[in-house]
């Protein structure tokens, strides 16, 4: 087994969130010196820093509210890539492989894991770029499959249930006023017409009192 790698995040964002290791052991993160160290499943620490920096450009923390770093988006992506999705376990991967028209969707051989590894190479020392260079770099990659995946996964990581590693502290749901999964809206669905109704968000685990069985934790 490879050396365990960690992503270091600001504690204010993610401290106290219950995370699970790849082996399924619960791990209560504790803030140490204002930071937390999240064990990684797919990325190396250096890769995770690059991905986190790129996600932050896609969904920045700014005057309109917190962004990808506070939500722990890189942790979400790390777990998706380590799981069945990342290695195309649930995709038809028999050949022959042919190029086709857009109406036939992605026909490539590359798994999401491979796309990210290549994308990381293309990003290079992204975290070390300064001024407007990161934005220019991402602009130049906008049309690539890697960037498309990264953008999609950043949105997913912002607004997923926190059991998947993103949306830490329900920060994404607070940002858009989503209450989380709830058992019932029977008394509310035909009220509040034209008015925002924004009950305090709660996660699936908070609602159900037990954790979900995540697909990314599926063993082979």
């Amino acid at each position: 087994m490879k050396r365990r790698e960690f992503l270091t995040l600001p504690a204010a964002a993610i401290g106290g969130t219950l995370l699970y290791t790849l082996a399924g052991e619960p791990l209560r993160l504790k803030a140490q010196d204002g930071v937390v160290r999240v064990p990684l499943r797919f990325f190396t620490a250096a890769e995770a820093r690059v991905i986190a920096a790129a996600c932050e450009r896609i969904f920045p923390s700014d005057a309109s509210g917190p962004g990808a770093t506070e939500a722990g988006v890189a942790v979400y992506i790390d777990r998706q890539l380590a799981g069945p999705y990342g290695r195309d376990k649930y995709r038809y991967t028999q050949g022959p492989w042919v190029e086709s028209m857009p109406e036939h969707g992605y026909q490539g051989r590359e798994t999401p894991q491979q796309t990210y590894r290549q994308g990381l190479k293309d990003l290079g020392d992204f975290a070390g770029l300064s001024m407007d260079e990161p934005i220019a770099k991402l602009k130049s990659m906008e049309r690539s499959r890697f960037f498309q995946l990264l953008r999609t996964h950043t949105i997913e990581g912002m607004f997923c249930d926190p059991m998947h590693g993103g949306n830490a502290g329900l920060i994404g749901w607070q940002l858009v006023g989503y209450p989380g999964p709830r058992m019932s809206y029977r008394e509310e669905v035909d009220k509040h017409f034209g008015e925002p109704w924004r009950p305090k968000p709660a996660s699936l685990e908070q609602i159900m009192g037990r954790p979900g069985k995540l697909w990314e934790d599926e063993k082979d």
Partner: protein
Amino acid sequence: MLLPEYIYITVGNLTKNGTRREYTVNCWKRAHSCDGTTRMTNLKPVDVAVIGGGWTGLLMAKEITEKTPLSVAVFERGGPHKTADYALTMDEVDYFIRLRMMQNIAEETITHRHSVGKPAVPMRQYGSFLPGTGVGGSGEHWGGLSFRYLPDVFTLRTHLTSKHGAAKLSPDLAVQDWGVTYDDLEPLYWKAEQLLGVSGKAGNLRGQKIEGGNIFEAPRQNEYPTPPLKYSYVSRLFEDAAKRLGYHPHPSPGATISQTYRNPDGVTRPGCEYCGHCQRFGCMIGAKAQPSNTLMPVLAGRSKFQLHTGSWVRRVVHKDGRATGIRFMNNEGQEFFQPAEIVVLASFTLNNVRLLSLSKIGTPYDSAVRKGTLGSHLTQQVQHTTRLFFDKPLNAFMGAGSLAIKFSDFDGDLGFSGAEEGLLRGGIFSVGSTGEGPIRSFGVMPSGVTSETWGSEWKRASMAWKDRVAGINMFGEHLSYWHNFMDLDPTYTDKFGDPLLRFTMDWTDHEHRQREFAAKIHAEVAREMGARFDATPPRRAPYDIVTYQGTHIQGGAVMGMSPHHSVVNRYLQHWDMPNVWVIGGSAFPHNAALNPTLTAMALTHWSADALIGRYLKHPEKLV
């Protein structure tokens, strides 16, 4: 409410979902011989083998075990499902985005090409349709919309010929009369509606038109079992606008029921809680009718019923013009032969057609000469959606799969003569509140707000438009054409090495016109609703396997009055093999503008009545 524990009879291991008691009733021994090769194990014969444990297969099993002493064994590829498991599945990532309830596309998919002569490529990830797996099939993750079809749908060839004249109909048009009529099916629709407890409001009760219901529907003998669901904000806006424009909006009939209901089988289900987790999810309280909460509670107690989960049927075995049983694999890769007197194919449209093709039952359709029947009449659903943008929040996270307001003024060929628009058939218009997760609509905004797709400006705009987006949708009737069909792919295979099913399908001018017509109506309604909308006319794009268009794939083993034009007769009995029955969407000669489940169930009753009432007395061809 407690549902009885199900008894799953399994051959080999349950799938990973399996937590139920395991029973092994059939006598068999492990089939590995000394050299490690596997040989086929013969099981004890059953009277009826049903392939597929979804709505139609389990309904057929219920009818047979209720009305006859026959033994019925249902073979389902996936694992068991039960209501209690669904509470922990209210998760947008795993279920809405990664599609965890669907068949494993790595094991089997389809290939697609737009026309003969072009190379077909596999659908490598799900897109245009989503077949479910496990007990209940797609009936577990469906939205629950439960319509009856218009009477002229069942006699479409006759209807169009008398309306337009045979000379005006394209020679490419393959539509035909189904061999049943609405009057045949009316009492069976009612049985299906009671089974599901369908919520709705009658608009035509024994010929009397009732405002507030769908006044264009065919006469019904009974009011719906339960009243309509509540209104959401956007559905109220849509209804008011449609009324002002002179249309006749009505609540959609739906199987996510509005209040507690006890069906004729004694199964009680609660009313919907509007949690917004219907489509692509299972219902955690059983308010949405699913085979697991409606048919399984009845079947589980029947001694003549067996359900084999984790059982992948590969062939219908036959000899001298009659089926002798089925061959299937369990999850451990062991192969079994199940002898049976009657074989019912009741899996998803695609698998019914593929199994018949692989088993060499029937005459494959040859598009070059338009001869043969197996695989012809492939249809899906013509859809067009126009996004609506509002200046007020919609609280769109609340809703239900069947919470929709519709107007049927353009269903069938109502509302237009057909000549001026170049249209033979139209569609129905609706705005739904199915419950929206936070991921799927983030970043949707009116065109022109920003050109950025990431970064600060995009983030601010996306947040500003969050929860202000809805869609008006047209569900159009999809006519069948001789150039849209299914056959076996010469190149790509499933996990066992069996050929995949190949789609040859593209849109024609008629479907493009249906969408262009829809866009005009959408614009009219959107303006009346006071919404911003995208006025770009629909692109005349080829059929695509990427965009979701409804899991309403029909045809391939269609019903009809002659063996030259159909695979099964009007009772869904195979023309060539009297003890093979093929039920479900594969029998539809074209696709109406409405969700197919209720019609598939009414036809299952129709078929079951013929099988039980006539075939068993004289087990030969009924026609």
